[in-house]
């Protein structure tokens, strides 16, 4: 059966209406392209937030595991991810963005800092505010494959309904 398609670049406006940071806002990205960019990153890190432990998402996150993309479990999603057999490392998101901007940090595996941060399953306003640290003070490429448009990412999906979101994630996973 052919893969269902979805346009993830529609409705690319901040989910929280007033969350307009400035002239530089995320480029809306198609799911296929997001997947390709992630697959080509040298040191990618998937960053999962607490709502990311929702039904269905751990299966997608496992695909990242299978492609050796490390998973950072932020907030309190670790328990649910572990129960779904996802390999992940707990880290506080606020601390993580601090580490990501520090050239001295060697990453979770000791092999160096990350060049691409992929966000999925976050409390919207929390992730948005911390993406702004990465946007303004690092060269880390931030790709949001979350359900809502994140202006502080470099690339982001638009605001998606639940069905389109899950379809988009499958498209991303297929490209890894």
């Amino acid at each position, binding site marked *: 059966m052919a893969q269902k398609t979805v346009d993830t670049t529609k409705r690319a406006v901040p989910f929280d209406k007033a969350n307009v940071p400035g002239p*530089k806002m995320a480029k809306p990205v198609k799911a296929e392209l997001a997947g390709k960019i992630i697959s080509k990153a040298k040191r990618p890190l998937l960053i999962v937030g607490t709502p990311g432990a929702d039904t269905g998402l751990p299966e997608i996150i496992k695909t990242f595991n299978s492609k050796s993309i490390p998973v950072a479990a932020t907030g309190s999603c670790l328990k649910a991810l572990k129960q779904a057999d996802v390999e992940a490392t707990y880290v506080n998101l606020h601390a993580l963005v601090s580490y990501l901007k520090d050239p001295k940090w060697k990453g979770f595996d000791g092999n160096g800092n990350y060049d691409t941060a992929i966000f999925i399953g976050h409390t919207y306003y929390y992730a948005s505010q911390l993406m*702004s*640290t990465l946007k303004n003070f690092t060269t880390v490429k931030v790709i949001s494959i979350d359900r809502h448009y994140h202006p502080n990412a470099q690339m982001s999906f638009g605001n998606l309904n639940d069905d389109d979101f899950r379809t988009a994630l499958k498209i991303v996973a297929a490209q890894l």
Partner: protein
Amino acid sequence: MVLKKGRFIIEDLENVQINIGNITGAEVEEEEKEKEKKEAHGPTISPGIHGLRDWDRRLLGRYEPVYSPICDLCCYCTYGKCDLTGNKEGACGINMEAHQAREAMVRTITGASAHAGHGRHLLHYLIERFGADHPIDVGPSNIKAPNTQTVLGIRPETIGDFIPVLNYVEEQITQLIATAHAGQEGSALDFDSKALHAGMLDHVGMEVSDIIQISCLGFPKSDENAPLAEIGMGLIDSKKPVLLVIGHNVAAVTYIIDYVEENELIDKIEVVGLCCTAIDMTRYNISAKIVGSMAKQLKYIRSGIPDVIVVDEQCIRGDVLKEASKLHIPVIATNDKIMYNLPDRSNDDINSIMDDLVSGSQPGVLLFDFDKIGELAPELTLKMAPIRKEKGYTALPDDEEFKRLTSSCSRCGACVIACPQGLDIDVAMSDAAGGDLTLFEILHDKCVGCGRCEEECPKGIPVLDVIEKAAQKVIREEKGKVRIGRGQIGDPEIREEGRNLVLGTTPGIVAIVGCPNYPDGSRDIYDIAEEMLKRSFIVVTSGCSAMDIGMFRNEDGKTLYERFGGRFLKGNLLNVGSCVSNAHITATTIKVASIFAGRNIDGNYEEIADYVLCRIGAVGLAWGAFSQKALSIGTGCNRMGIPVILGPHGPKYRRAYIGNPYDPEKWNILDARDGSSHLMEPAPEHLLISAETKDEALPMLAKLCFRPGDNSLGRMIKLTHYIELNEKYLGELPDDWHVYVRSEADLPLAKKEMLLKILEQEHGWEIDWKKKKIIKGPFRRPDVSFQPTNVPRLCKGASV
């Protein structure tokens, strides 16, 4: 008798006053006293902006500022707007980092000013009413004003002694805000040092405010058995006339309560409060009732229950007058911080004011005369109640209207996008149209009552009113109890518990403070408090958090205040009071340094803060912090060496202070015995950080209680809680538990063998299994005589 400089009034000669300027002998005596005091003082009496800069740089060197801009532009001067994205410089030369640090500093100063302004107002009023010589009485304490003493080296005895204290705070605030002007400071780090200065000043301003009201207004004085007050919308008898007071400054409200009592109106009228004024009026008179925290403001006004509203200052919605006018609720503004463009009727006759308010010809008045407020507010309430009740004023829809409104929702999602919490209002609306109110009943507690949803609804649905109507069943059950603010922790309590705290056998103090902008409802802070109390932490609370903790009951119908004692002792829950009572939290750590450790606190801020950072496992949790005051309170805690965790809205404050545990250069500490430098565990790991959920915050609270000065028993207890909370809420052992192990004696007893195996197998440590001892592995061994310090001058042999 020794004559001093000053003003003298001769008894029975009312109009005769003698002003004495200079008396040589007295001057000399005063000077000698001052000299003696200075000799006994630490090095920073009334420090200026740069006075504690070295300490700040020590803190910020370890806990690096992490900025999270909420806006990438600078709109500060007419050069702009400037786009600072990517840390670019604007036209004035300031870059994004420094601009963010400045923005956070300005907000910290704003918070400090609000408390200091509050304190100044109270001081003027209380001196006028009670006299400058009115003695300070905070309960059984020799150290009456710990923050004041530590910052200024002053030991106040009377309320008048606080005049120079506030003079100092106000001068410093002026100097600080001056640095925010374009073309002043250009360094992010120095802006942060200034923010820390503002935070410290805030704790002095708060301390003055609370001590003088405790001393003059008969509030509980270090009273562990302070009585329980009633709280909750479900407790208000809406059949009676209802007088609602909102704000933080209780001065005017005391006149209302006195009038109600003197005129035997207590059973005839409900005097209820929102926000910190509510807490403080129960400290004044237990018959007053608390509606709840700030989040209930708009909800309660819209219910139409209040017949009159009295406002004072701070955290009061800008639309109170507009909302009240719609329901014919007269508003009396009593403080020049909030005047709502109302006419000043202070010099008018009460009856004429009453007539204008009852008729509605004026929606509200400005009234600065407390005697008039005392009489007018209750009498007006009695007059308004029958008029309003007859007309049935309420913003809440009736059943038919409710059905129409919920059915008219097109589920466009505009309300969800507007909601600060992103609540599923559209789904709840749809459920309610089908007759299911469950989701709305859940949303009622999660809703912070801001009303942004209504501003965006294209159908004009009054969303907040719909939520409140749907949640009536839940609201009727909102009946709690809160122990009224006890004030300071007394010296005897410190003597009893200080040792346990420093050695770590009491695992820590968790201070749950701040506003109700909770990410997932108020239940979270009840759950957090309960978990930490059961684990024998001392839980201290204040303000809106103190109220919300009291809103929930266990299966036996008891609130946490009824289940846990109010003494400064492990496993006790202490409500220190209102927002300004937060000064007692830093004060407690100062007292421990003084009473338990015998440190000189006078003008000795750096040494005391260093002691707190190294020894006292205290951590703040501002889970729903929204205000500038919450930021200044937290920043003041930070300068005193107390870490603070914010909820997920916290990064909107724009900066945090986060430690990098992987960088050994950051974690060197000195041994004061010989000045030798040692690598230590990251304890505490962060100074200001946020958490996403309650489940994440809980293990963080335990972790941030680690201190380099912990003895082995204390470390074992703290590590036990950290590991258990991590396993319970995050599902596994924390990945950094081993860095807090200095010897086998630090290991939790129940897990000792298992943890030793992990240390050997996963971390390559050498274990003597016969003796169950760690032979090799930890980078630091425990040493009971170790004297940790971050300040070189405090080391033996250092040239001061």
